[in-house]
């Protein structure tokens, strides 16, 4: 039990440091890299929790299938949705006003 608790304590300390790193990086002039860097740190922390606290590696194999399935369907939604919204004209209240005002 002692070994398992020590591993948990070490992982907890590492994740607190990761939160600190994420906070510190937010104040650096990273420009467009802010979002991917912050999300990468968040995903690494999520993966650590899924492994250590949710014990995904030791869970029944169907659990792994559902975990991967959830993430895969989310990725499909994100990629298809983003593709749609990023490749067609944007209609916001501002552009609608401009369209209305056009000769």
């Amino acid at each position, binding site marked *: *039990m002692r070994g*398992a*608790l020590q591993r*948990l*304590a070490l*992982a*907890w300390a590492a*994740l*607190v440091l990761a*939160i600190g790193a*994420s*906070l510190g*990086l*937010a*104040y*650096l*002039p*990273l420009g467009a890299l*802010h*979002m991917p860097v*912050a*999300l990468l*740190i*968040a*995903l690494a*922390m*999520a993966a650590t*929790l*899924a492994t*250590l*606290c*949710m014990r995904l590696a030791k*869970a*029944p194999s*169907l*659990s792994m299938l*559902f*975990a991967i*399935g*959830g*993430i895969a*369907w*989310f990725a499909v*939604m*994100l990629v298809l*949705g*983003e593709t749609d*919204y*990023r490749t067609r004209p*944007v209609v*916001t*209240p*501002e552009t609608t006003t401009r369209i209305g005002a056009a000769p």
Partner: protein
Amino acid sequence: MQYADRRHQADTAVIGMWLFLATEVLFFGALLFTYMIYRGWYPEGFALAISRTEVTIGTVNTILLLTSSFAFTAGLVAAEAGSLKGCAWGCIAALVLGLGFMGLKAVEYAEDFQEHLVPGTGFAIDGPARHGAELFYIFYYTATGIHLAHLTIGIGLVAWLLRGLKRGTITQDHLTPVEVVGLYWSFVDIVWLVLYPLIYLVGRGA
């Protein structure tokens, strides 16, 4: 017979919780997708709104929730090693930390209201970035509100575990409820770990 043995029954409960969590990924995923789209459309409004969020409270709350997950897991490890008392302490720690999160969130909401950071008439941010900032705060209240609802359910479940430990319905041979509630609790923590940079960090330093 419904289950072949006790392990089969436990595995079924664990798999059932993972299936539920997969639906939750899509539930929160739709919210995140909306955030990404509107952030792309209104980068200035989102950056301005994020700079007004309470980053200190957000960071402390992130550490509280993270610690609660590890405390709960430590309790489960103790239970598996034969210490139901250790399990109870893990549950109590998670419960207290979860309540601490809720208390700080209440303080944060109160400050947001005082600063008129509520979309609609009298919204604190004006000018060309107002519309985007309002959309950010709609996301903020929706996402944090739904997360709080999940946390409230989690706190109820942990309290139910404590009752079971006290009454003896959760025993050394029957730790499945602890395992399943732990999955839910850690998932709620993971959701917050993703919300934290989106609400408090990205765009703050511009």
